[in-house]
């Protein structure tokens, strides 16, 4: 089978984001999605710290310390972009104005529960940021992650063992092996990577999946 690399997963996510969408890309892996958004679509990127209309990374030497994203990386602003304070920014999130957010995850459950902020280790210093707001607020919560942990366990689970970020909030999961929709009646496979059978994906995932035939590939 041909596992997708990080950029290929990001490109697969980008394909599903339509023209005109307002989108928040989470810190880390999801920020790669920005590099793959189709050029013929006008998609407006939001960042929690108070900006809509984020553009490309600035050229070296052109960074401005007052113009950063939620990952505290320097960014640029598109024509038409806007700044606003933190309460407005999270009002946009919580008030269901964002069409999509893309988040990383440690685990996603069959019911769409998301765990992505805390490993649960007793000595870990907890940090949550805007993850819980995005999980409950965006109209579509997309998760991108590797399908399996380093020791081969499925990150799609019957019940999350890590502390939850949000309950019943994930709509679609993108992994290096498949794209899977989370629906009230269970997990529906949308895409599988080349060379991997549904049966093998089912075996690796360890939770009940419904085959792609039911929901034709996007």
């Amino acid at each position, binding site marked *: 089978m041909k596992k997708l690399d990080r950029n290929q997963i990001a490109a697969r996510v980008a394909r599903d984001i339509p023209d005109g969408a307002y989108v928040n890309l989470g810190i880390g892996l999801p920020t790669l999605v920005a590099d793959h958004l189709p050029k013929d679509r006008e998609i407006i990127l939001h*960042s*929690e*710290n*108070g*900006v809509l209309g984020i553009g490309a990374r600035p050229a070296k030497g052109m960074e*401005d*310390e*007052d*113009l*950063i994203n939620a990952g*505290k990386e320097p960014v640029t*602003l598109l024509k038409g972009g806007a*700044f*606003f*304070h*933190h*309460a407005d*920014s*999270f*009002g946009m*999130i*919580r008030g269901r104005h964002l069409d999509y957010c893309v988040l990383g995850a440690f685990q996603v459950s069959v019911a769409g529960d998301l765990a992505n902020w*805390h490993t649960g280790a007793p000595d870990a*210093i*907890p*940090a*949550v*940021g*805007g*993850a*819980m*707001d995005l999980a*409950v*607020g965006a109209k579509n919560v997309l998760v991108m992650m590797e399908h399996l942990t380093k020791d081969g366990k499925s990150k799609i689970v019957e019940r999350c063992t890590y*502390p*939850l*970020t*949000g*309950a019943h909030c994930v709509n679609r999961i993108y992994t290096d092996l498949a794209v899977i929709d989370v629906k009230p009646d269970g997990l529906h496979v949308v895409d599988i990577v080349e060379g991997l059978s549904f049966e093998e994906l089912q075996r690796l995932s360890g939770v009940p999946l419904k085959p792609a035939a039911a929901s034709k590939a996007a």
Partner: protein
Amino acid sequence: MIDKFIATAAEALADVPDGATVLIGGFGNAGMPAELIGALIAQGAKHLTVVNNNAGNADAGLAALIGAKRVRKIICSFPRQTDSWHFDKAFRAGELDLELVPQGTLAERIRAAGAGIGAFYTPTAFGTRLAEGKETRRIGERDYVLEYPIHADYALIKADRADRWGNLTYRMTARNFGPIMAAAAKCTVAQVRETVSLGELDPELVVTPGIFVKRVVRISPLRKVA
């Protein structure tokens, strides 16, 4: 006559008592009132409760305040950073308490304080460990968590321009927590890059009206410290 301009950061913060609750603006370095924090460290107030999105980066600003052991409690959403060593050390040594709040709930709790709201229900964090022990309520089809405002004695913020009435404008993402923190504190101190005469700020573009601001200190970019 109203004149909120104060000559130095030291004068502007001279009356901060031990045990005060202090909102500190900024998200990363953008909007962080570094010179005001420096003056607060020099002033010596201790046992402070500090509210900020983070818990300090590297050795400057809020990190230095924590390093100087002036902070008893921190209310924030994202303390753990690759360079949050002052917080990490103090937290692991049990020298300060942490109240971890989801970022949007943090912002709304600050906004609620400034807007006279007694409490509010938010869907954020329902069903998670950050909602444990809190009142919840089902409204319509959704579950919500009851959250209370964060009132403060002081707010230290960084804006771009100000007039002597305390009207403020900001610069790009440095705005972040400034406007809501200004409204939530009894005494808001703004450090600004430039002071201007009354009438020079376009009233359509004033972001924080002067009613929310008590003191304004101009920090010359040439005298940048820490």
